[in-house]
């Protein structure tokens, strides 16, 4: 079953597999996840003067008076800033704005809410940042297309989910303009058209994607040094690069034609080759 919720300034798409559309457990879990996202929105919105983040920014409350979620996010921001050598900042342009961490974190949490309710096979896509769980169909991993930043409607690469790869986050300028600043120069980062990070946790992947975008091509070496994360980038001129472990799916050669049955593989059901959820 599917659900699209407009929240946090974007659209969050839920795709739950293996359940009927009116499955009461699924309906309830989705409602819980959606209301969580709205709570997060209310807490972290920089557009709402009464949000905890706005109050904190104006010094009207102390960090100790904030909800625990805010404290958690601020710690994540500090960690991302440390990890990226200052390329990630919770104060882009001066004002407190942890948005770059909040969305990935919230989507990962929403995914966890679904999983706690027993919805093992699902995918949550928050404005282009994705947390997957389980698989879309027996024996098949989630396949995540990465939108090509310079060619609307085309894909630059396809990520194959698997062990250690359940989160995909992309940072870029195609949708909202050059809004990511290089904190070291104060100018918009323009070296890359987009960068995609794949890993296990969307919280981590999303925060690192923002920092990596600000770094430009230097992000390649940086991400290679980050355990459990890999990157794929399209540069401003349309060239691409990827880190060695990037989980790109092999190209599908001829989807229109029926699969060629190999005699070696058709000898019995126990034959190796076509089995296993890790096959893309």
């Amino acid at each position, binding site marked *: 079953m*599917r659900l*699209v919720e*407009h929240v946090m*300034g*974007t*659209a969050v*798409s839920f*795709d739950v597999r293996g359940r009927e559309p009116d499955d009461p457990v699924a309906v309830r879990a989705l409602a819980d996840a959606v209301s969580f996202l709205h709570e997060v929105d209310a807490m972290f919105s920089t557009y709402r003067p009464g949000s905890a983040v706005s109050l904190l920014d104006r010094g009207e409350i102390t960090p100790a008076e904030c909800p625990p979620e805010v404290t958690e996010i601020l710690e994540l921001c500090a960690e991302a800033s440390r990890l990226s050598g200052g390329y990630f900042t919770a104060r882009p342009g001066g004002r407190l704005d942890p948005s770059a961490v909040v*969305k990935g974190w919230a989507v990962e949490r929403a995914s966890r809410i679904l999983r706690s309710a027993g919805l093992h096979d699902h*995918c949550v*896509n928050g*404005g*282009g*940042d*994705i947390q*997957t769980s389980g698989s*879309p169909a027996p024996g098949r991993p*989630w*396949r*995540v*297309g*990465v*939108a*090509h*930043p*310079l*060619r*609307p*409607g*085309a*894909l*630059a*690469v*396809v*990520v194959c989910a698997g062990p250690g790869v359940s989160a*995909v*986050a*992309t*940072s*870029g*300028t*195609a*949708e*909202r*303009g050059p809004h990511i600043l290089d904190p070291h120069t104060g100018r918009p980062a323009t070296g890359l*058209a*987009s960068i*995609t990070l794949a890993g296990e946790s969307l919280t981590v992947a999303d925060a690192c994607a923002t920092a990596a975008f600000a770094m430009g091509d230097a992000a390649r070496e940086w991400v290679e040094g980050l355990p459990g994360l890999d990157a794929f980038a*399209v540069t*401003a*001129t*349309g*060239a*691409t690069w990827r880190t060695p472990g990037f989980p790109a*799916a092999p*190209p*599908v050669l001829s*989807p*229109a034609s029926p699969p060629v049955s190999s005699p070696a593989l058709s000898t019995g059901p126990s034959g190796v080759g076509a089995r296993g959820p890790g096959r893309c």
Partner: protein
Amino acid sequence: MRRAVLAVMVTAIGLVLLLSFKPHQITATTDRPALVAQGDDPPTRNDQGDTRGTGDTRGTGDADDSGGASPGGSTGGSSSGSGRNGGSATLSSGSWTGGGATAGARTGDRAVTGGVADTVYGPVQVQILLSGRKVTGIAVLRAPDRSRRDLAINDEALPLLNQEALSAQSAQIDTVSGATYTSEGYLASLQSALDKAHV
């Protein structure tokens, strides 16, 4: 609902070629863009109007209201009129990427049109073609081509893009990652088309 332009972009030859085309205005709302086959024949497929209409729902209107179909948008959605306008032979290389266009002739296939949204580069609209639950083709109905920045990007990027870009048809994807879209931008996204189609 009054849509200024729906035109077909020739993805196979990249955005650069678009720049040499004159904007082509189609104002009739019933006049859907021709879907051009991947092969040599460029037949229009207006006989699919019923199924394509299903996906072409509120979202489009919302986006139009928000400015997607502004006068600027109509020129921004520049493209060839494809087969109908006597396009050159190269046009037949496909507004639908992949072989899905031929599948489009079969019954049971349907096309789902995303809404129009303004990106920083201009209005964008995509349409996907489905055969059952499988994405078999994708068409870019509108793509930006006007800004100087696009010109520079396209000139430099074309050779690389031709090698690197994949069509959604061959990709068999479940979901799409990309630079964060706004709530309005979602309407034009591939993800929106996938959600609508319940693939």
